[in-house]
Every structure is written in structure tokens, then in C-alpha cells.
């Protein structure tokens, strides 16, 4: 399988305040694969997505590292086909434009479709993402739809770009549980159907477990562990990953262990602890942990962690 996306030593900063939001992360994504990014709020998951899609907000800049796509090697500077969907679909849709305008202009931009062709394709896409009476919905505005329907519209819009990579930043966080399940199912189907790669962000390991092939655990702007999803869930090596898994509520009635909260709180980016950023909250911490940040090292097959004292398998 060919590598679609390679991120090397990515550093993202807020220049005005001289804080590093993303501090030297590495990962790669094969075409057709799904990578899950997981971590507590503020660890830099969204910024990683924005950096990959080259849409960092004002006042935030990539100051180091590289983001390269497969075509760059052969096809020169062809723009990679990336589409993105967001956590809050309703506010990510322009309130003054109809769903039809939104989809048809995207179909024109990405596929050159116009007029009746664009309209028919828009209807087909809406049907594909599970919106009934699709033809009559083209004249609707986002405020007339529920959050779940708007997320479907965003997905339809993403499909219009025929992306090689779909970035989904917490696509189900704002939705209720049944809607979450439907959207995840839809993403699974579309992935299989189109062969696109998926980068999915969630603070919910359950979502990651369901969709991703590999997962990367982020903490304070660093990837602290990456592994195939099943391996990560069964044999987390980094104490933070382990703690994240332990504080997941289980729905298994056999599992009587109550969820264990992680002690302490996430440090602020402008006052990160020296060494391993997790050491003030880590039960395994030793002296060296507070001296230098641990380099990433293999702890298993395709399994790496940045920790001096990884949890044994």
C-alpha cells in the first residue's frame, strides 16, 4: 500500500505568544487507511488537522517540518484532494446559502459539473449520505436542518471533491448518540466505497476504535504513542494512553472496574513542565522523566511510544 501523507517534525506556533501548539510530530498515512487522533481537549488535534489541510487560522503558523503528499513526488505541485468536515456542522455551513448552492458550487469547482448535471449529482450525493426527499432539500437552508442532517450535508459536500483524504475533526461530538452511530456507519461505508483515506479526530476512544486502523495519542502538542488500534487498546505502552483507556466508561456488564480519572490536569502550553510533559500526573515518573523529553522508541510491531518506563505488555 502506498503512503499518501507524510508529516515530519511538524511544529506549529502562535508567534505572538511564542508558544508551540504542535511540537515536532511525525506520522504517515497510507491511502485507504484510517488514522485516529486521540487526546484530551487542547492537546492539538484540530491544529494538526488544520496544518495538514493548510488552513491554520490567523495568528497561528507552521514554523517547521513538512507535510507531503504522494503526488508531490511524481506529479509535481498538484494540489492533493483533501476534504474536511467539522465538529459543529451547522456553524460550518454558510447560513445565507442553500444546501443546493453549497453542493452545486462544490461540484462545479471540483468536477466541472454545471446546471442540471450538477443538480442531479447533488441529489445523488444527498441520497448517498442518507437524506430523504433529497431533491426538495436543495432549496433548504442549514438552519432548517438538524445537526445530524447538516453533518450529512457536509459529508456529501466533502464527497463532491472526490477526496483522497477526508479529515474529520470530531465529526460526531455535537450529535446525539444514535446520530453518532449513524454518521460513523456512513463514514465506514464511504471509506470502503471510495477508497479514500480518513483522518479522524476524537477524544472518544470508542470512535477511534471503531473507525481507525492506526491511532496516535496526543498530549500537549506531541504524539506520545502510535500503534495499530487493537494493539493500542489491548497493550497501551505510554502511561497516558493507558490512563485514557482506563477512564473510558465500559458498557460491558462483566467489567466491574469503575472508570479511573487521570489525576491532575492538562498543563498550560505556556508553562509546560520540563522533560516528559506528563510527569506531574504520571505514577511511573522517575528523575529522568523530568529532565529530558523521552525520544520515541519501538515497543512492538509498528508500535512506538515516547516514554522512559513504558507499561509492560
Amino acid at each position, binding site marked *: 500500500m502506498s503512503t499518501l501523507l507524510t508529516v515530519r517534525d511538524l511544529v506549529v506556533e502562535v508567534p505572538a505568544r511564542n508558544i508551540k501548539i504542535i511540537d515536532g510530530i511525525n506520522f504517515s498515512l497510507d491511502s485507504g487507511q484510517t488514522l485516529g487522533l486521540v487526546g484530551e481537549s487542547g492537546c492539538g488535534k484540530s491544529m494538526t488537522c488544520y496544518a495538514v*489541510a493548510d488552513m491554520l487560522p490567523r495568528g497561528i503558523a507552521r514554523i517547521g517540518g513538512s507535510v507531503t503528499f504522494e503526488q508531490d513526488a511524481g506529479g509535481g505541485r498538484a494540489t492533493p484532494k483533501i476534504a474536511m468536515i467539522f465538529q459543529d456542522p451547522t456553524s*460550518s455551513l*454558510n447560513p445565507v*446559502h*442553500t444546501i443546493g448552492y453549497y453542493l452545486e458550487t462544490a461540484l462545479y469547482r471540483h468536477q466541472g459539473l454545471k446546471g442540471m448535471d450538477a443538480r442531479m449529482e447533488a441529489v445523488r450525493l444527498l441520497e448517498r449520505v442518507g437524506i430523504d426527499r433529497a431533491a426538495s432539500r436543495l432549496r433548504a437552508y442549514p*438552519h432548517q436542518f438538524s445537526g445530524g442532517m447538516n453533518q450529512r450535508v457536509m459529508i456529501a459536500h466533502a464527497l463532491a471533491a472526490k477526496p483522497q483524504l477526508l479529515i474529520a475533526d470530531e465529526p460526531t461530538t455535537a450529535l446525539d448518540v444514535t446520530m453518532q452511530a449513524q454518521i460513523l456507519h456512513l463514514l465506514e461505508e464511504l471509506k470502503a466505497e471510495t477508497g479514500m483515506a480518513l483522518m479522524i479526530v476524537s477524544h472518544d476512544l470508542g470512535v477511534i476504535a471503531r473507525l481507525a486502523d492506526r491511532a496516535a495519542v496526543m498530549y500537549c502538542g506531541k504524539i506520545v504513542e502510535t500503534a495499530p488500534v487493537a494493539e493500542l487498546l489491548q497493550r497501551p505502552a505510554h502511561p497516558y494512553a493507558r490512563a485514557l483507556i482506563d477512564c473510558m466508561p465500559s458498557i460491558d456488564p462483566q467489567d466491574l472496574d469503575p472508570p479511573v480519572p487521570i489525576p491532575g490536569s492538562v498543563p498550560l502550553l505556556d508553562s509546560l513542565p520540563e522533560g516528559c510533559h506528563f510527569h506531574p500526573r504520571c505514577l511511573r515518573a522517575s528523575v529522568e522523566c523530568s529532565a529530558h523529553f523521552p525520544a520515541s522508541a519501538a515497543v512492538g510491531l509498528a508500535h512506538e511510544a515516547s516514554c522512559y518506563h513504558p507499561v509492560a505488555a
Partner: protein
Amino acid sequence: MTAFILARFLRAIAVLVFTVTLVFIVLRLTGDPAQQMLSDNAGPEALAAFNEKWGLDRSIPEQYLYYVVNALRGDFGVSFADGREVFTVVAERIPKTLVVTVSAFILSLLIGIPAGILAAVRRETALDKSVMAGAVLGYSVPNFLLGLVFIFVFAVWLRVLPSSGSSTWNHAVLPVATFALFNAAAIARFMRSTLIDVLGQPYIAAARADGIPYWDVILRHALPNAAIPMVTTIGFVAGGLLGGSALIEPVFAWPGLGSGFVNATNTGDLPVVQAMIVLFTAFMVAINFSVDVLYAVLNPKIRKH
């Protein structure tokens, strides 16, 4: 949307009736027109005769009824000052005021909107800072003072434009400029802040992520959203035009409604003052109503309920 517009229309009528009534009562209660119009040493008989002639000796409700019935027929009475029909006295000043206010209004839109857009798009650059410095200056200097400065510079010092009167087009230049600059400043400031606000919305980030060209994002995605709150501000500016004419016209001795209103107030010409206030109110109400309608037309959340 029809229900919305109908409701706003009825509200406009109600506001008009309420204001006309209030103004009528307040004007009757503040000061005796006979005292003001006649000389100080007029005897009681003269005052009584004046009051009887103009129906001022009747009760306020009676006067009000009379006034409303006549006003609905287009009869606003006769000027105390020169005995001419109020309707004529007011109507002949309208074109003069329209020339200044409408040109100033259009000019302020033509300057203010692009300036605000550029300032927002080139945020925190020298361009933005100079536009905003100009806007703050234009907005914080009272407009009659700006008028006096203009007179000093262009009429007294450079001697390129006349300072007062209305006999040639050149006479309109300074009043229009004064008016337009003040309003353009207000519009530019609001345009900038509204657009900056819209540009920070998630749907703009999403549009840019989708690879839509920058100016397309500004023109087709951001501006239609910014237009909704802008309508209110522009309506505000439009509504202030007649009131502003009372401040600016006297500075340039421009014989429009504003000067007329100031004169009539000074001389206590009650019927003229009253008719002008009714006209100003009707104008305000009409502007507000248009703002409501435009707001609904531009905003799908109201249009498609």
C-alpha cells in the same frame, strides 16, 4: 415572511400615530405660541385674539382632533410667521434637503463600504490603520464643526468654494462633503467590524479549506452575511439624515428643511415645527420599515421560517 412584514407595517403605523400624538401634546404644553410670536408688550386682548384665530383657545383633545382630520387631508394649517400654507412652506424646502442628503448618503456608501471592506480584509496593515484613523477622526468630530473647518479651509483660506447659500451646484459641495464624510466614517467602521466578525466564523474557514478563491470567499460567502447587520446600520445613518440636516444646513445657510426647522423653532412657528416633526417621524418610520423588510429579505432565517 408576509406575516412578518405585515406585523412590521402595522408597527410602523402605530409608531407614527403615537409620535404625532406625543409631539402634538408636548408642543402644546411647552410655552405659549402667542407669547412667542407677538411682541413682548402685546396686551391680553391681542394674545386672546391670536389664540382664538388659531384655535389655540380650545381644549387640547379638540385641537388634536382638528389637526389630525386636517392633516389627513394634507392641510397642516398656516404658518404663524407669514400666513402661507404650511404644506407649501415645507414642501418647497424638501428638494433642497434631498439634494444634499441623498448625494451625501450615496457618497458615504460609496466611500464607507469599500473602505470598511478593505480595512477588514487587510486587517492590521498600514491600510487598515489609516482607514480606521480617518474613520475615528471623521466620526468623533461633530459634523457642524467639520463644516466650519471646511468653510475655513475651502471658502476662507483657499477661496475655491462658496461658504453659504444654494444658488449654484458649487454651493452644495461643502454641505454634501461634511455630511458624507461623517456618515462614511460610521459606515466604514461598522463595515470593518462586521466583516471581521463574519470572517472569523467557522463557515468561512470551511469555505477556504474547500479551496474557494480568496475574493470569492469575501464577496460570495462573507459579504452576504455581513450585509444583514449592515442594513441596520445603514438604516440608522439614513434615519439620521434629516436630523443631521438641522445641524449642517444652518452652518452653510442651505435653505432646506434643517434650516427651516431651526428658524421655525426659534420663532415659535408652531404649525411649521409640528409639520416638520411629523415629516421627520414619517421619514424615520419609513426607513425603519424598509430596514425590517430588507433584513427579512437578506436573512434566510427570517425569510424561510
